[in-house]
């Protein structure tokens, strides 16, 4: 039985193969091994949401997934989704509304927000808040984030 394993996955559209320790969680793998430091580790027990990334199209907590579990998966981080332009509208609205201050929660917040945007429809402010209820922000008080998402959703209706 091995404590390390070879994995091959796609990260932000690029094929990646590495040997990883089984115990390394996904966000540490992305940050340390691949230098994708945009996703942050805020608690390492799945509560704060700073590590939110996308795996096979679904948002997940990067600290609650082992890198070895991402073998064969398609992983997308804030860097990739910025470069592809998928987050452009949200980022623009976040910027206009100052829906970020220190920026540490922001990548996770954007991933969670984009997940809501992709679901379509016109969620209410309360529904937006509910969807974000797993992403901790200490700086903004959340209102500007809700405002930004509301406006981003408006544009696509």
């Amino acid at each position: 039985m091995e404590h390390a394993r070879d994995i091959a996955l796609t990260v932000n559209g690029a094929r990646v193969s590495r040997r990883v320790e089984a115990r390394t969680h996904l966000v540490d793998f992305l940050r340390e091994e691949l230098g994708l430091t945009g996703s942050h580790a805020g608690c390492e027990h799945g509560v704060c949401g700073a590590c939110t990334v996308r795996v096979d199209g679904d948002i997940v907590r990067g600290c609650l997934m082992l890198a070895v579990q991402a073998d064969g998966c398609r992983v997308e981080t804030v860097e990739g989704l910025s470069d592809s332009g998928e987050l452009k509208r949200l980022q623009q609205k976040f910027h206009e509304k100052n829906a970020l201050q220190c920026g540490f929660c922001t990548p996770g917040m954007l991933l969670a927000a984009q997940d809501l945007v992709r679901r379509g429809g016109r969620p209410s402010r309360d529904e937006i808040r509910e969807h974000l209820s797993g992403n901790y922000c200490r700086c903004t008080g959340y209102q500007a984030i809700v405002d930004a998402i509301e406006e981003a959703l408006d544009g696509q209706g």
Partner: protein
Amino acid sequence: MKAPAFAYAKPATLAEALELLERPGAKALAGGQSLIPSLNMRLSAPELLVDISALPLAKIEAGKTTVRVGALVTHARIEKSAELRARVPLLADAAPHIAHPAIRNRGTLGGSLALADPAAEYPACAIALDAVLVLESRAGRRTVKAEDFFKGLFETDLKPGELIAAAEFPAAKRGDRSAFLELARRQGDYATVGLAVHNDRAVFFGVGSTPFLLRDFSSRERARAFLEENLSPSPDLYHSATTKRHLAGVLLERAWNTLETSR
């Protein structure tokens, strides 16, 4: 908070998985939403994680009288399943209360049932629905009624080397009534006190080391009396036993009112 070192295996078949699970220090890894935090916090130190996510345990099979939900079905799928919304509405009502979307995308029914957190939603729903759990081991398959499965604080009837393969729920029929209520400090938190009701079975959770079953929910007075006499809640960090007892009573009234108006 980095996990201690462990070995990892990802079996392709159930037989392989069951063999691995009998090794000393082996633990099943499904969604990992509860296991991985405990590893990161060094609260557990397994020798070997057996990743069961490749096993064929992720089906939702709706029969005439029974709906069988595979252990690997995620909370997100349960939340979104039109089939479950129609055939086992209590489960579909409970799912949105579990943590947050990113966690629901990975967390599984089997994982939740196997962990038996006293403040978790599914164990109570399973008991309310009088569900049957299907367990597999090298010795073979066995079934256990949900109401017999939860033994104590994080303790179930799972034997070493045993895996939950699926849970079987009764399919909805005419006249069925169910209600799900949960009190929590914040959206997605574990329940302070919760209540899952299906017909005459009412199950409280967050009140003790295991869910508390009230078999006769046909009369408000009898239910109240039963609660009074038999519920001995454990306190948590923020709520004394007395508070828990009071809140259980409040939920009882509210559930009763909800079901009353839906008659």
